[in-house]
C-alpha cells in the first residue's frame, strides 16, 4: 500500500463531497478551537496573575502572627484564654539589624471602624496602620502629596488610595489634600494619595481602597489592634529560605512560643499555579465536550462515505486490496479531515483568545502547548472516530459490496 497514493485518494474523495466535508469540518473546527481557546485563555489568565505577583518582586516574605485576629474558635465560643503573644513594634523594627538576610520590613496593623467623610460613609475604605517603609516594599507610588512618614507617629495624618480619593471627590471634597476624614473615633488629615495599581498578587490588601495611617496611630486607636502582618524584603544575594530561617529564629528568641508564620512568594506562586492548572483542566474538559460532538460528526461523515462507496470497496477488493488497505484508506481520509479541522481550529482558537485577551486587557501569550495539543488531539479524534467506519469498510464482503449500487 502506498501512503502517498492513499493521501491523494483521500483528498480527492473529500473534495468530491464538499458540502459534507465542510459540515464535518465545522464540527471539528469548533471542537478543537474551543479546546485551544479554553486552554490558552487559562494559560493567559495564569500568566496574568503571576505577572501581578511578580511585579512586586519575588524577594519579599510575609510574616504573620499565628495568634492573630483569626484564631480558630472552639465549641462556637470565641476563646480569649490563650495568652495573646502580641508582636511588639520595636521587635519588628529591629528585624533588619538582627537578621542580616532582611533589608527592610513593613509591619502593618489592620484598623477597624467605619470610615466616613463629612458625615457620609465611605463605601470602599479600610484602614491600615503602616510605617514609611511600607510604600517602597509594596512598590506603591504617590500621585499627589506624600506618603505617611515615620515622623507622623504623633500626628493624625493619612495617605489614601486612589479609589478613596475618588469617592471623597464624589462626596464633594474637591482637592482631597488637607481634608479630614473619620475612621472609628479618630479624625485624620489627608496628606497624600497613592497612584492606582493592580490588585492581587503579593499584596493582601486592596491598595486603591485603603486609608494608610501611621502604625502608632492605628495601635493607639483600639485596644484590640495588633501587628497582624509584616512584609519583609530579603537582602540581595540571600535566598528566601535563609532569610526565612533567620526570621523564625529571631522570633523564637523573642517569644517563648514560635508564633509567626513566614510565607515566601514561591510557595504562594506554586499554590496558585496548582489552582490555575485545575482551572485550565476544567476549561479544557468543557472544550472537550464540543470536541466529542465534532468527532461524532467526523464518524458520521465517514460512515456515510463508506456506505456510498461500497461498490468502490468491492472493486478495490477484487483488484487485490487487502482488508488492511481498505481500512488504511478510510482511516487516512478521516485523519486528513480531522487534521484540516485541527489546523483551522488552532487558528480559530488562537484568534478567539487574542480577541478575548484584547478586550479583557490581558497580555496575550501564544502557548505552544495548546497548538501541540490541537494537532495531537485532532489526530487522535481522526483515528478514534475514523476507526469504526474504516473497520466496517474493511469487513465488507467483496461480493456484497460489488452488487450494491
Amino acid at each position, binding site marked *: 500500500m502506498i501512503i502517498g497514493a492513499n493521501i491523494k485518494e483521500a483528498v480527492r474523495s473529500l473534495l468530491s463531497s464538499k458540502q459534507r466535508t465542510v459540515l464535518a469540518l465545522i464540527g471539528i473546527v469548533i471542537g478543537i478551537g474551543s479546546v485551544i481557546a479554553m486552554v490558552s485563555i487559562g494559560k493567559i489568565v495564569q500568566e496574568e496573575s503571576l505577572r501581578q505577583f511578580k511585579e512586586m518582586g519575588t524577594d519579599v516574605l510575609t510574616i504573620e502572627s499565628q495568634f492573630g485576629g483569626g484564631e480558630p474558635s472552639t465549641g462556637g465560643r470565641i476563646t480569649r484564654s490563650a495568652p495573646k503573644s502580641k508582636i511588639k513594634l520595636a521587635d519588628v523594627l529591629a528585624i533588619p539589624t538582627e537578621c542580616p538576610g532582611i533589608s527592610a520590613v513593613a509591619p502593618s496593623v489592620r484598623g477597624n471602624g467605619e470610615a466616613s467623610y463629612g458625615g457620609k460613609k465611605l463605601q470602599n475604605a479600610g484602614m491600615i496602620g503602616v510605617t514609611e517603609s511600607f510604600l517602597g516594599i509594596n512598590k506603591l507610588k504617590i500621585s499627589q502629596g506624600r506618603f505617611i512618614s515615620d515622623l507622623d507617629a504623633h500626628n493624625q495624618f493619612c495617605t489614601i488610595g486612589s479609589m478613596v480619593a475618588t469617592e471623597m471627590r464624589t462626596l464633594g471634597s474637591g482637592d482631597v489634600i488637607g481634608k479630614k476624614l473619620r475612621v472609628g473615633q479618630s479624625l485624620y488629615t489627608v496628606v497624600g494619595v497613592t497612584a492606582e495599581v493592580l490588585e492581587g498578587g503579593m499584596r493582601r490588601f486592596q491598595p486603591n481602597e485603603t486609608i494608610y495611617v501611621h502604625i502608632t496611630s492605628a495601635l493607639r486607636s483600639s485596644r484590640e489592634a495588633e501587628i497582624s502582618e509584616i512584609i519583609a524584603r530579603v537582602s540581595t544575594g540571600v535566598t528566601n529560605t535563609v532569610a526565612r530561617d533567620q526570621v523564625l529564629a529571631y522570633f523564637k528568641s523573642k517569644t517563648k512560643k514560635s508564633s509567626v508564620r513566614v510565607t515566601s512568594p514561591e510557595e504562594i506562586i506554586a499554590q496558585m499555579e496548582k489552582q490555575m492548572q485545575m482551572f485550565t483542566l476544567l476549561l479544557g474538559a468543557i472544550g472537550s465536550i464540543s470536541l466529542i460532538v465534532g468527532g461524532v460528526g467526523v464518524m458520521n461523515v465517514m460512515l456515510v462515505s463508506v456506505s456510498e462507496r461500497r461498490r468502490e470497496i468491492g472493486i478495490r477488493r*477484487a*483488484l487485490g486490496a487487502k482488508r488492511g488497505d481498505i481500512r488504511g484508506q478510510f482511516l487516512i481520509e478521516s485523519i486528513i479531515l480531522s487534521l484540516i479541522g485541527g489546523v483551522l481550529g488552532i487558528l480559530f482558537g488562537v484568534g478567539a483568545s487574542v480577541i478575548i485577551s484584547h478586550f479583557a486587557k490581558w497580555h496575550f501569550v501564544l502557548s505552544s502547548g495548546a497548538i501541540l495539543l490541537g494537532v495531537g488531539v485532532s489526530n487522535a479524534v481522526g483515528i478514534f472516530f475514523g476507526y469504526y467506519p474504516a473497520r466496517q469498510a474493511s469487513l465488507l464482503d467483496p461480493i456484497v459490496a*460489488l452488487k450494491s449500487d
Partner: protein
Amino acid sequence: MLRLSEIKKSYHIGPTEVDVLKGVSLNVDKGELISIMGPSGCGKSTLMNIIGLLDRPTSGSFELNDAEVLYTNDDALSDIRNRNIGFVFQQYFLLSKLSALENVELPLMYRDDAAKFTREHSMELLRRVGMADRAGHRPSELSGGQQQRVAIARALVCNPALILADEPTGALDTNVGGEIMELFKELNAEEGITVVIITHDPGIARQCQRVAVMRNGVIVP
C-alpha cells in the same frame, strides 16, 4: 491451470438451505479460451466468484496453478487475485473519480513491488486496447465499449495468467461486443493468457475454443 473438483456451495436464505452449486468439476488448461454458459440462476455467477477467489465454496477442492487455494487466508487471497487474476465485469466497474490511466494503474497500488511497473507500462496497455488517446478521460466521458477496453487494460496491468470475464459484453451492443470478444481472442492467441468468459449468450460462447454448459448447479457434459 484451474482444477475444480466437486465444488458445492449452499446459501442459507432464512430457514431454508439453497444449493446453488451441486458438485462442479472443471479443468482449464493454460492458454485456453473457455466460456461457461448457462441460463440465469444456474449458478454461473457463484462459480465465477469462487474461481475469482471472491467467495469460498461450502465443500470441494480448488487448485490454482497446482496449489490448493481454499484454505488460504484472506490477505493471501487478495494477493493471488492481484497477481494472477484479471477481472472484467459486465458493468466495467471503473472508479468514476479516476482517469482511464489511473484506473488502469489502480491494482498496482496494492502491490509491494509496484515500482517495477512504470507509467509507460500502463500507457502501453491502453495502446494495446486502443485507448491511448483517452488516457486522461474520466469513465463518464467514455462510451460503454471504451470503458470495457479500459477495464481490460486494468485487468492486464499486473500481467495475470488468467482473465476472468463476467458477461463482458452483456451491457454492449452486438458490434461493440464483437470487438471486445476479438480483443479477448487476440490476448489469448498472442499472449497465451487463459481467458474464462461467463455468459448466457450462445453467440459469445460459440467464439470460444471450449464451452462448458451449466444447468441447475452442475456442468452438463
